[in-house]
């Protein structure tokens, strides 16, 4: 199906227009992005999947050795600080790489879906130091390759990843009657069981009970994380012996192979309430806070018919007339706002990479060798620090101030998605400030009216065009394009 509005396709289903990038022309072109995106290696983790696993396990064993020495009365502050510094640097590089991925990728729909699912299956780098390294790995390994396949496959990969088990405390949960519980007094942790039902599958208020939450948690027992190898393991010593009843089915683990949780995930994925929950959430994210019922219904039908094939669900969404009506019903979240801003400015990859380099240089600045240098060194260091601060204020620092720092959702429910959260006085002044800063730094040579055309094309209201053209300076004109209602809506 040819798209009635390619501009809307880029703004509503991608990260906005970028000069020189052809907006998607039909539904198949949008859907084709998914296969292509899923097969490409993202820019993070920086050292690749197995490389990151090596890094993470090395850092974890360093931390463990230091902790052991500390307990023995021989703390090694240098090792601890160096390790913390490395984890912080790795996170920053990956977070910048995530921004770069979204900015530079021509596969806007795929990138937006990746963000949607990472948010749906939230994990956070703030959980612990190793998580700074593991969450980026999680997105690249568990989420991104599977967003066009079956929901069952995506759900299983997300839940059965060390990042999720650590984030929702599954690595601390043991069956109340398990061998380990009897010996150590440890017990059940319901965190993952609850979020699995409430957030990941059936949805809040869909009729399950506290008994179901407990049942899910019991079925999940035995799953844990081998911290040394950073692998998911099944520990029979942690597992609660069956049978456990959940939503009318009894999970027995007859074979004793610890695979009852796999059956549970399949059943939850196939539950009609899950289809309703996920389809509604997709529509609320992409189209409007009040999801049109007939659109959700069409997607649920496609879900049922295809047994949860996500590409078919997206196809049903994009093929529906309501997917192309009423533009501007959603407020971009800060990450989308920033990414679309950099895209509209057509910031070259090299310039964006320089921002990260400036931030990295700011780190080296703290080394004792540099501190001991002469006054010329001092001036150079101040310059370095200034550049690092500026780069941060343009990117990760601004996301923090606007309330959407990379891989740091406020809760397992992910970042909020409603207009009432993102259209507030302080949010607006933060966005104006950011717009003004990038306009001054990257927009000095641009013509505001041409920039408006590049950023919004036919999505700009004529009156906005008039106001922009009359702006008292080019910088303020560029600022107003980025701060305009049309640019902040999608």
């Amino acid at each position, binding site marked *: 199906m040819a798209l009635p509005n390619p501009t809307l396709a880029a703004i509503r289903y991608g990260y906005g227009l970028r000069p020189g990038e052809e907006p998607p022309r039909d539904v198949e072109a949008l859907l084709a992005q998914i296969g292509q995106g899923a097969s490409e290696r993202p820019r993070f983790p920086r050292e690749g999947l197995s490389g990151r696993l090596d890094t993470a396990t090395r850092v974890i064993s360093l931390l463990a050795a230091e902790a052991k020495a500390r307990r023995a009365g021989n703390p090694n502050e240098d090792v601890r600080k160096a390790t913390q510094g490395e984890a912080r640097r790795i996170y920053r590089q990956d977070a910048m790489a995530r921004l770069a991925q979204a900015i530079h990728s021509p596969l806007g729909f795929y990138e937006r879906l990746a963000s949607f699912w990472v948010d749906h299956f939230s994990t956070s780098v703030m959980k612990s130091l190793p998580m700074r390294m593991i969450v980026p790995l999680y997105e690249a390994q568990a989420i991104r390759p599977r967003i066009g396949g079956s929901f069952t496959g995506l759900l299983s990969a997300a839940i059965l990843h060390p990042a999720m088990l650590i984030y929702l405390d599954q690595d601390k949960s043991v069956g109340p009657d398990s061998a380990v519980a009897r010996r150590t007094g440890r017990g059940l942790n319901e965190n993952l069981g609850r979020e699995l039902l409430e957030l990941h599958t059936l949805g809040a208020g869909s009729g399950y009970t506290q008994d179901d939450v407990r049942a899910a948690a019991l079925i999940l027992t035995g799953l844990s994380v081998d911290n040394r190898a950073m692998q998911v393991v099944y520990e029979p010593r942690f597992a609660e012996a069956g049978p456990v009843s959940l939503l009318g089915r009894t999970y027995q683990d007859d074979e004793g192979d610890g695979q009852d949780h796999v059956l549970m995930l399949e059943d939850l994925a196939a539950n009609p309430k899950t289809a309703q929950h996920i389809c509604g959430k997709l529509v609320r994210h992409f189209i409007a806070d009040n999801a049109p019922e007939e659109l959700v219904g069409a997607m649920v039908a496609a879900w049922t018919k295809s047994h949860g094939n996500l590409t078919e669900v997206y196809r049903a969404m994009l093929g529906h007339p309501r997917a192309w009506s009423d533009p501007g019903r959603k407020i971009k979240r800060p990450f989308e706002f920033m990414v679309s801003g950099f895209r509209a400015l057509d910031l070259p990859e090299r310039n964006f990479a320089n921002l990260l380099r400036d931030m990295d240089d700011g780190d080296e600045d703290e080394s004792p060798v540099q501190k001991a240098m*002469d*006054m*010329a060194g*001092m*001036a150079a260091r*101040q310059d370095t*620090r*200034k550049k690092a*601060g*500026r780069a941060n*204020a343009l990117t990760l*620092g*601004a996301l923090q*101030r606007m309330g959407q720092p990379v891989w740091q959702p406020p809760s397992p429910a992910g970042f909020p998605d409603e*207009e009432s959260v993102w*259209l*507030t*006085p*302080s*949010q*607006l*002044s*933060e966005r*104006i*400030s*950011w717009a*003004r*800063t990038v306009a*001054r*730094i*990257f927009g*000095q*040579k641009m*013509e*505001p009216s041409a920039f408006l055309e590049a950023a919004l094309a036919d999505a700009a*209201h004529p*009156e*906005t065009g008039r*106001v*922009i*053209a*009359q*702006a*008292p*300076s*080019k910088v*303020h*004109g560029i*600022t*107003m394009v980025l*701060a*305009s*209602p049309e640019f*902040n809506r999608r």
Partner: protein
Amino acid sequence: MSFDNGFLLSRRGFLAGACCAAAAPIVTPVSFAAMPGDNRLVTIILRGAMDGLDLVQPYGDPAFAALRPKLGLRPDTGLIDLDGFFGLNPAAAALMPLWQAGELSFVHAVSTPYRDQRSHFDGQDMLETGGNGKGERTGWLNRTLAVIPRSGSRKAIDINTSMELILSGPNQADSWSSQSNFALAEDEIAFLDRLYAGDPAFAKAMEEAKKTDMSADSLYADGRRGAGITDMARLAGGMLREDYRIASFSINGWDTHVGQQGQFRKAVGALSTAIVTLKDELGEDAWKKTVVLAMTEFGRTARENGTNGTDHGTGGLAVLAGGAVPGGKVLGKWPGLSEDKLLDRRDLMPTGDVREVAAAMLYKQFGVEPGDLTAKVFPGLGFDKGSLFLRG
């Protein structure tokens, strides 16, 4: 946006310290040694089209009162008389000591060659590139750096987060920012209000943002309290006191279509603060060798409009301040305000080229040869050593 402002102060402190220690490699010895390279120039771009007829009011012109029934003042209603014909807007009272000391002049009825379209963007481009038309992409102040005879005079700085057009180009110039770059001027806020007028949810958020302290802080930065412009001028003054000889920055807030009085008072206050702060920061000796040139892309309509403001015009006003200016005069050839003397029956007729004012100051401060000025810095400009702006 929170940039590290403390750093800038420490950078200034560092330069001051380095001066006394005379040991820091970053401060070139030549900049302290030679007297010939001791003159300074500060350019201030007044973005948004400053209403020269409001700042320096021709109350002696018989047509003035009728053109400006609300905005026009007389000495008996608060205008500060300058010479019996022109008077200074009381919002600039802080500049009067400079006028009395012969350190302040104004040049009336000047403009760039830009005509007819009255677009801020094109007007500012022409003011900054110093050319006759479009196509030139380097700033005249940058091109000047290559033709200053004495190398010691060449260090230039843009007080901004990035190089503005006037100093952009192939020649080395530095830029430093202060927090004040993020302050929004009154006219910029007014434009944002217009931008959001058609979207009630955004309009409401903007209204509240202006009222809420924390949001307003990031909207106005320190600009509202006047501290922002002080920071910027102190930074410029500190740099010029040490090894820099040319500095440039902008003051926004001059696009006064609606409710001009309040907006104009704030913008004039910022300009006055900038000039007085530069004088204080430079100190007596350096101030004597300094010229501050404030200029705008074009003037505003001679007549008030229907919303207590003025619209885009042509002939404008330049401000000259500093110990090195021919002071205490309103310079320029006054065209008169009767309807037949107005350009298109609406704008003050330009009788001089603002680029000639700038050229005169470059000649006076740095000895740039007239041939270089008319060929390289301001192509197409007529200028010689007999310029009116050198005689004062």
